């Protein structure tokens, strides 16, 4: 190899190192306004959390990474609790396979479940726009109630506000939830080690594509439905089968790619994913292909990512596949010592690429 090639390579590697340093630098909030990117779950959201919320509310119980805060009431032997909150502003309110009501119940249950907690009860806050059809509200309340009863979780307190026409988009929901942490498991990104397996509980990108296709501008005929589901019983099955489970996350906004990047950065490891092992329905893959979207960046509402020690991966996988919400579960990747903080996708044709977090909203490519 010539020296010219080597020196060019060295300067490229230098540049990569500068990129790495720039990426790891403390988040600075430069934006003058809130843009939609701040709500997309990708990089802008992380900057907002790291630069504004964590410094303001920094608390040992909330580290900006976990889906729920965990704490004890007081004293030795008192139960450990998990507490979480989430707001739902999806448009349209109804989409194939679900609606905002079921989403609001399942999403908050899932945040509790991912921290290893069994959900106890939920609160329900409704913000209604003047003029909302009573029939729509009735349907959504019925859906909230039915999702809660399917999940075996009660909605125990609530609040209602009405804002003038035009000050909200029909109906927004906030739910908070309290859960009881399992004593036999300890979930944290810090426990992740090279050799751990990455599992997903089923087909990726269903929810995001179902909602996107339900929006008026797109006239693609498909059977894609949301995967919205409460995952706490699946989590119980996984934790029973693989008590050494390192971490559970639900890949919602920003999709699998964003979740895996969060894990890789937090645990300071490299994650290698086999693209062909990631379950994606053909029609979802096709719709993404047509719209120029990456299914790894599309939201899920009834799937989880599990990091499991290699020796328990097979039993964890078996427990998932034995559960109705994990029939298409798969081992999709492994944890490596490096490249630190990066997710690498091996493509079916034998190439590889970096799978990065979502930047901004998923904007369709034009050609």
């Amino acid at each position, binding site marked *: 190899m010539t020296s010219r090639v080597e020196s060019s390579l060295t300067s490229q590697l230098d540049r990569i190192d500068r990129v790495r340093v*720039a990426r790891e630098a403390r988040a600075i909030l430069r934006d003058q306004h809130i843009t939609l990117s701040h709500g997309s779950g990708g990089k802008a959201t992380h900057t907002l959390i790291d630069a504004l919320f964590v410094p303001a509310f920094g608390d040992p119980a909330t580290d900006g990474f976990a889906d729920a805060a965990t704490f004890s009431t007081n004293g030795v032997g008192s139960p450990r609790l998990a507490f979480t909150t989430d707001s739902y502003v999806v448009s349209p309110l109804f989409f194939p396979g679900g609606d905002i009501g079921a989403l609001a119940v399942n999403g908050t249950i899932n945040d509790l479940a991912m921290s290893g907690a069994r959900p106890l009860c939920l609160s329900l806050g409704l913000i209604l726009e003047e003029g909302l059809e009573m029939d729509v509200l009735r349907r959504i309340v019925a859906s909230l109630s039915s999702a809660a009863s399917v999940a075996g979780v009660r909605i125990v307190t609530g609040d209602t506000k009405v804002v003038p026409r035009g000050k909200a988009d029909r109906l927004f929901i906030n739910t908070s939830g309290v859960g009881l942490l399992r004593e036999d498991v300890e979930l944290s990104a810090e426990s992740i080690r090279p050799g751990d397996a990455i599992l997903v509980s089923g087909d990726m990108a269903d929810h995001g594509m179902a909602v996107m296709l339900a929006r008026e*501008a797109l006239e693609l005929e498909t059977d894609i439905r949301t995967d919205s589901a409460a995952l706490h019983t699946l989590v119980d099955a996984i934790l029973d089968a693989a008590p050494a489970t390192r971490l559970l996350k639900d890949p919602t906004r920003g999709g699998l790619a964003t979740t895996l990047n969060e894990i890789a950065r937090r645990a300071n490891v490299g994650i290698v994913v086999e693209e062909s092992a990631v379950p994606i329905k053909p029609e979802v893959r*096709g719709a993404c292909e047509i719209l120029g979207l990456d299914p790894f960046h599309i939201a899920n509402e009834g799937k989880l990512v599990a990091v499991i020690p290699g020796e328990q991966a097979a039993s964890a996988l078996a427990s998932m596949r034995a559960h109705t919400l994990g029939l298409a579960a798969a081992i999709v990747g492994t944890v490596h010592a490096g490249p630190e903080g990066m997710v690498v996708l091996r493509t079916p044709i034998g190439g*590889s690429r970096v799978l990065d977090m979502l930047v901004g909203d998923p904007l369709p490519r034009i050609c």
Partner: protein
Amino acid sequence: MTMQFVDEFRDPTSIRHLADEIARRSAGKTFKFMEVCGGHTHSIYKHGLQDLLPQNVELVHGPGCPVCVIPMGRIDDAMAIARNPGVIFATFGDMMRVPSSSGSLLDAKADGADVRFVYSPLDALKLARDNPDRQVVFFAVGFETTAPSTAATLLRARSEGLRNFSVFCNHVTIIPAIKAILDSPGMQLDGFIGPGHVSTIIGLSPFEFIPALYRKPLVVSGFEPADILQSIVMILDQLEKRAPAVENQYARVVRPEGNRRALEILSTTMELRPHFEWRGLGFITQSALKVRAEFADWDAEVRYPVPGLRVADPKACQCGEVLKGVIKPWQCRVFGTACTPETPIGSCMVSPEGACAAYYNYGRYSLMKQGAALDTVPA
């Protein structure tokens, strides 16, 4: 909806054969080929195709990303139009994040402008029908691939007598840009992977000057991994035989004569501008389209005052050299430090098809692997 017609072009075995063929034919020499179209760049990174190419075959990313070549001043103009009271400004998603001299359309939206993203100009037309009391302006960008749908929309707007719809036309044509690159000093390309989608419209004959005058091969290529690799084999074959020509690898889609109907409606509704500024490449004569005077009622540049100022590209930004293939994205002064996909300075960092964004997102790992291989060599 299945993935038939896609998966067969991603079959690992045939791809391995093609990669071996490229290695065999290119052995002992170095080659630089430009993929003209941003869609190819995207596919190359998405599939990690560079991992399959020998190190002596280098792909240079060309000017064919429509988002990347729009000069900053036109985004300023777009934002000025979008800020007119009553205007709904309809744009493709990619354009929302392209920086102007102050902010992007996303910022204009956060600031109160009604900016909406659409998938086609016909969606914008529907917006106009659904909002008769508002003015809808469609931000038309793109090469000959997207220009005919804008043309069809103009015709439809006229036939429906829609008075609250207009087009801010920024369509560009690929041939003058390729010529500018061929004429630029320091150009060292050995051949071109020709733009598949553009060629469905313009056909093959507009490329004939490339082998005739510049003695370089051009193979119009599809977008799947096997398409691109096969096109490289075809280019190598032409070079071996010293017989540069225009060939069509994408014959399942591209007809030699192009799409006459599309070209017809293009020339009915639009005409060449005397010159147009390309980001990084500067002014290129007869390289862009404007709405014809007969359609002035639907021309946003007639309807609204646009500043039309020329805004110099940021000094540190080297998009121009990247677009010309003179430097690689990572060689730019600001790549990955000041200029990232979250805070792009140059437009090449905005669209996932932009050479810099593609490189930032997908290219770094293969470099690291090469670096790791180097590390094992004793110092």
